[in-house]
């Protein structure tokens, strides 16, 4: 038995090489799968429903993939559409696919699988004790659910499998595990679960596991007791080390990777070079666990306006901590007086000093080794953009003249490169859940719809 999987790219819209993908099509894969999502760039995509890559870049990649699929008529699975995999992002991706189908005169059956979560359902599950925390643990409450702008469930094999059983040619899935996109067809065809899930983990980032790492296409062959990985760009290669090392990337542990259906265990794997550019993996295992669906939720923190500046005076630089403490106390008292009705907790003013501990904050071990100049980022967060900017105007003016005891008379404490110094940054969201749901049925959290194009 040999089952072949083509992964055009680690993330749709990052631009794979046409030749690589075409080479993959000629190798006759049983499925083409591609991830379109990520939590890595922050909660903004989930909070707003707006995709991270440019629409035109996504359309370029998707067009090539749809044309390739049309030659072979094999399933195409795109998961976590529009970065967040929220319902609006799936609809947005659907419109791109329909647009391409019309332009290229392509015909297929689309499945849309929606993953937004109903708040009443989640509260009921919370009441039943069916929502469990992951590491690092924190509380999840009805209040957190209420505050969430959007919550998605992360689907896996079961949901994609159902869409394929119901005749889908092209699946546009909401939030899904990266691995399930690549694993579903081989598992349906009877491939070994350990090898299949590990293979999926290996190619979900595209040619990120290649030498040199690239945003490009990968190809795998799963056989009875092994899988073989090959980058489709002939100038790239993978080695036993790069493939083994890929289980490290963005994972808590290199030995165990949790999926909705169970855990991929790589502890007993062997990695061998097949030739000078492809690798064979053996010994991957899959341990079944209680069926769970992970939640991802985003809540609005507020709206931000930022001020960028710099400081060069050595006297000021040596007392930054006390100076900002002073500023903080002053603003805490004065801002509510300047903006009637505003309470102390309705806004925040945050000073970040580059050249001191701008990157690591309180974790910085060398915060006392400061250079001859520092960069300053002041972030003002409030419940509306208008308010954030109004407070910023006040903060920018006062901060520009913060006094130090060494100098007499008024001084200019901060160098501002822009006029006006404040820049509106828009809404800011944060992730607020790190939990899994134990559903009664794998389908109760997801909604399926189909259309013929």
């Amino acid at each position, binding site marked *: 038995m040999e089952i072949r999987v083509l992964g055009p790219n680690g993330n749709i819209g990052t631009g794979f090489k046409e030749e690589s993908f075409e080479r993959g099509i000629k190798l006759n894969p049983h499925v083409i799968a591609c991830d379109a999502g990520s939590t890595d760039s*922050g909660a903004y995509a989930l909070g707003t429903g707006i995709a991270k890559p440019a629409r035109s870049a996504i359309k370029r990649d998707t067009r090539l993939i749809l044309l390739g699929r049309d030659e072979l008529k094999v399933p195409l699975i795109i998961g976590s559409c529009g970065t967040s995999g929220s319902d609006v992002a799936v609809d947005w991706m659907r419109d791109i696919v329909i647009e391409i189908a019309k332009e290229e005169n392509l015909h297929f059956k689309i499945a849309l699988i929606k993953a937004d979560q109903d708040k009443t359902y989640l509260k009921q599950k919370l009441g039943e004790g069916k929502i469990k925390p992951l590491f690092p643990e924190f509380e999840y409450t009805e209040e957190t659910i209420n505050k969430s702008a959007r919550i998605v469930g992360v689907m896996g094999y079961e949901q994609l499998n159902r869409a394929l059983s119901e005749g889908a040619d092209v699946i546009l899935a909401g939030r899904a595990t990266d691995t399930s996109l690549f694993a579903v067809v081989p598992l349906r065809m009877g491939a070994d679960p350990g090898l299949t899930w590990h293979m999926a983990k290996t190619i979900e980032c595209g040619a990120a596991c290649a030498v040199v790492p690239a945003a490009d296409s990968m190809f795998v062959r799963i056989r009875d007791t092994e899988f073989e990985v090959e980058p489709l760009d002939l100038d790239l290669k993978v080695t036993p080390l790069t493939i*083994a090392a890929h289980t*490290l990337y963005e994972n808590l542990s290199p030995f165990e990777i949790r999926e909705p259906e169970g855990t991929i265990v790589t502890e007993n794997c062997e990695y061998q070079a097949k030739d000078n550019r492809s690798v064979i993996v053996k010994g991957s295992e899959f341990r079944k666990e209680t069926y769970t669906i992970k939640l991802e939720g985003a809540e609005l923190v507020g709206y931000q306006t930022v001020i960028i500046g710099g400081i060069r005076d050595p006297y000021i630089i040596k007392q930054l901590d006390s100076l900002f403490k002073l500023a903080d106390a002053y603003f805490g008292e004065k801002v509510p007086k300047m903006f009637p009705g505003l309470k102390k907790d309705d806004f925040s003013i945050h000073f970040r000093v580059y050249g001191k501990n701008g990157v690591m904050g309180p974790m910085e*071990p060398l915060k006392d080794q400061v250079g001859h100049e520092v960069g300053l980022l002041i972030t003002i967060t409030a419940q509306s953009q208008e308010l954030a900017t109004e407070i910023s105007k006040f903060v920018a003016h006062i901060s520009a003249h913060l006094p130090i005891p060494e100098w007499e008379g008024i001084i200019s404490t901060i160098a501002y490169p822009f006029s006006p110094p404040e820049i509106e940054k828009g809404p*800011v969201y944060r*992730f607020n859940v790190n939990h899994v749901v134990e559903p009664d049925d794998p389908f109760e959290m997801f909604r399926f719809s189909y259309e013929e194009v």
Partner: protein
Amino acid sequence: MTTLGELAKVVRSKNAGPFIMTIDIMFPSKEIYDKVITTGFFTTKLFSDLYNIKSDLIKIYYYDIAHTIKISMPRPFFQGDICDGDNYAGQQYGPLVLINIPI
């Protein structure tokens, strides 16, 4: 004494989801990897002191097959929070590069 930056093939940090950051220290050979491990230098206490995080929340994995020491710990701030200065946790390995390893 040699710095970790000189010994390692790569030292890198990254999010493992929005709540955890993970550091990979990959060595160019099994020999160097074994030598470094034998020093007993990498302990949860070291990372606890360096990153100001409780040591029982820090996990260290020895991934022999890729000559890699992996350290995972909770992020000090959730990704994207007002106080978070590194959305991808991509520069949090900084303090490790010039650290001296007793070999």
